[in-house]
């Protein structure tokens, strides 16, 4: 009755050596269901991704082409209004315009290039991440549900299952018995080969990965679709060249006046990686041109008003000069009557201020989403002009001159930038977002090669719901 005494390790090892139990059919069905779901989920965001990229591309292209058309009209309408005496000057202007056009074309091309490059990057990056994150969340939720359901059914099922195992194992044991002799022979070898000693680092990798994914999953779970927040920050307007006020001021030095933008922002999450944001913001853009001389005369004298200013005083026309470059011309003009009474016979800084209501529409692509989130932002803004002043300031006094006549009531900008988010709590986060906005059709006519763009650092407190 007493068998051989055997070490407990050996007993277990021998018994479990070829231990196989085939699971019930519903297990595979469950796995298959998840795999199908995962596929479906993978297809939808892919579609959305392309749609998002296409939307950005279309807006950039359409706004760009609108801008082109504007330029064409400008070129076609001949400059007959300006004095025929200045024909040489006009030629210069024309050639200058062509240069500008070329420049703009280049910039536009670059813009498009950037946009397509970006979409390429986004499409490349997405599949992997999608793959590993989205389905996991729901998997996990389902798992939790499973466990919950299982607990309810536990008493019933455990009994059933136990029987199942027993039946299966009895079959197994019969097989074991039949194969016993063969197994004896192979025993030593099998023990040696069956015991696997896999490389430790690989194991660790998988463990770490699982753990990492877990923390991300847990974090993502808390994320809601909508968020609303404030946004405010300094804005700096700049242009590399040109002057929107008068061609003669092209070479004068110009300074951007930092000004403030503020507003509200709404963000809607389309998918795990993509979101759309919009809002409404007030923005003041201001910059000054230094060393400017303004000379006013009666319009009755048929003095041409070459600058893009609608003057406050009726019946007056004026010329704006750079006080460095046009001294001789200025002297000439200064022989006009009323010059001595003119309050504008000043040299100083010309100060232009434009106030807009900005409505941005931007797509956001998430690069990192942890406690600190990093997003790429691209899109465009529509601007509605409501404030437009030009003033001159000299020796501490500021005198309003009028308003710019060449500014469009509605214009657009192409926006690119980064958005950094820091999560204070699952629902509350602060963000800061350096953005570059390139304005597309601020000026309706002769912008003197002025290609305005501005740089803003927006910050805000946001609430997710």
């Amino acid at each position: 009755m007493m068998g051989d005494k055997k070490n407990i390790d050996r007993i277990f090892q021998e018994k479990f050596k070829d231990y196989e139990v085939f699971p019930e059919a519903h297990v595979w069905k469950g796995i298959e269901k998840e795999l199908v779901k995962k596929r479906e989920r993978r297809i939808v965001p892919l579609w959305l991704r392309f749609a998002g990229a296409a939307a950005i591309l279309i807006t950039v292209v359409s706004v760009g082409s609108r801008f082109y058309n504007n330029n064409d009209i400008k070129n076609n309408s001949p400059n007959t209004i300006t004095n025929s005496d200045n024909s040489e000057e006009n030629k210069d202007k024309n050639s200058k315009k062509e240069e500008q056009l070329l420049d703009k074309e280049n910039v536009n091309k670059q813009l498009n290039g950037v946009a397509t490059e970006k979409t390429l990057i986004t499409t490349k990056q997405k599949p992997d991440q999608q793959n590993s994150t989205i389905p996991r969340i729901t998997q996990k939720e389902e798992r939790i549900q499973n466990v919950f359901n299982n607990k309810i059914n536990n008493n019933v099922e455990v009994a059933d299952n136990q029987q199942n195992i027993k039946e299966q194992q009895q079959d197994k044991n019969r097989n074991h018995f039949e194969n016993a002799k063969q197994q004896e022979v192979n025993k030593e070898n099998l023990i040696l080969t069956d015991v696997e000693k896999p490389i430790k680092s690989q194991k660790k990798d998988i463990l770490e990965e699982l753990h990492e994914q877990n923390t991300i999953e847990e974090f993502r779970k808390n994320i809601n679709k909508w968020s609303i927040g404030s946004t405010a920050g300094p804005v700096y307007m700049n242009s590399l060249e040109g002057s929107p006020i008068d061609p003669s001021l092209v070479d004068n030095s110009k300074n951007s006046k930092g000004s403030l933008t503020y507003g509200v922002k709404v963000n809607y999450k389309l998918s795990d990686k993509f979101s759309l944001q919009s809002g409404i913001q007030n923005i003041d853009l201001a910059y000054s041109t230094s060393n400017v001389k303004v000379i006013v005369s009666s319009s009755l004298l048929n003095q041409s008003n070459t600058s893009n200013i609608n003057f406050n005083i009726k019946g007056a026309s004026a010329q704006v000069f750079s006080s460095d470059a046009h001294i001789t011309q200025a002297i000439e003009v200064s022989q006009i009557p009323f010059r001595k009474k003119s309050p504008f016979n000043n040299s100083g800084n010309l100060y232009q201020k434009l106030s807009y209501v900005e409505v941005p529409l931007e797509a956001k692509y998430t690069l990192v989403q942890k406690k600190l989130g990093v997003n790429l932002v691209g899109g465009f803004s529509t601007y509605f002009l409501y404030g437009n002043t030009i003033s001159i300031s000299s020796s501490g006094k500021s005198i309003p001159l009028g308003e710019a006549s060449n500014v469009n009531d509605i214009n657009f900008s192409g926006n690119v930038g980064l958005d950094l988010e820091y999560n204070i709590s699952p629902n509350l986060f602060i963000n800061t977002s350096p953005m570059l906005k390139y304005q597309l059709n601020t000026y309706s006519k002769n912008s003197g090669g002025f290609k305005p763009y501005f740089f803003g650092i927006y910050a805000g407190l946001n609430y997710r719901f």
Partner: protein
Amino acid sequence: MGLKQLINSCKENDRKAQSEIYQLFAGKLFGLCLKYSRNYQEAQDNLHNGFLTIFDKIEQYKFKGSFEGWLKRIIVNTALQTYREKNVLTLVSEEIPEEIDLEIDDENISLDFLLELIQGLSTRYRLVFNLYVLDGYSHKEIASMLNISEGTSKSNLSRAKVILRNKIELYQSKKNEAL
């Protein structure tokens, strides 16, 4: 289709290939799950999650080392992950392992009974016993996998063995009394 072809098809998300891989390995891997789990139900959950991880990560299998070994590692890790989440790996008394001779009678012990014994062990003992005795991991590896010291792994193992031996002996003596 050869195994290599099957794996490659799986990498392309081919449902048929996935099904075939499942049919090929489900038996072995479910056996593994049964050893590492507390009951049949948990074993099914672990198999379910393990296979999803397998199909998710199969791109990472570069035909280095045996495929079965790779699968087993994922299943074992899935099981460990389950118990790590449930935080049942803490709080086990630690002792210096005693070198005891654990020998018992080989006769009339069913696989079924042994499985019951393993599943009846506390989670830490069950995992350490499985990893070391049945799946050939070293104490060093176990220590890093379960985030315990090597000493703890050793002492857990010997305590697990004592418990198992006592239960087997109890079972055998009852059986003898019945005869």
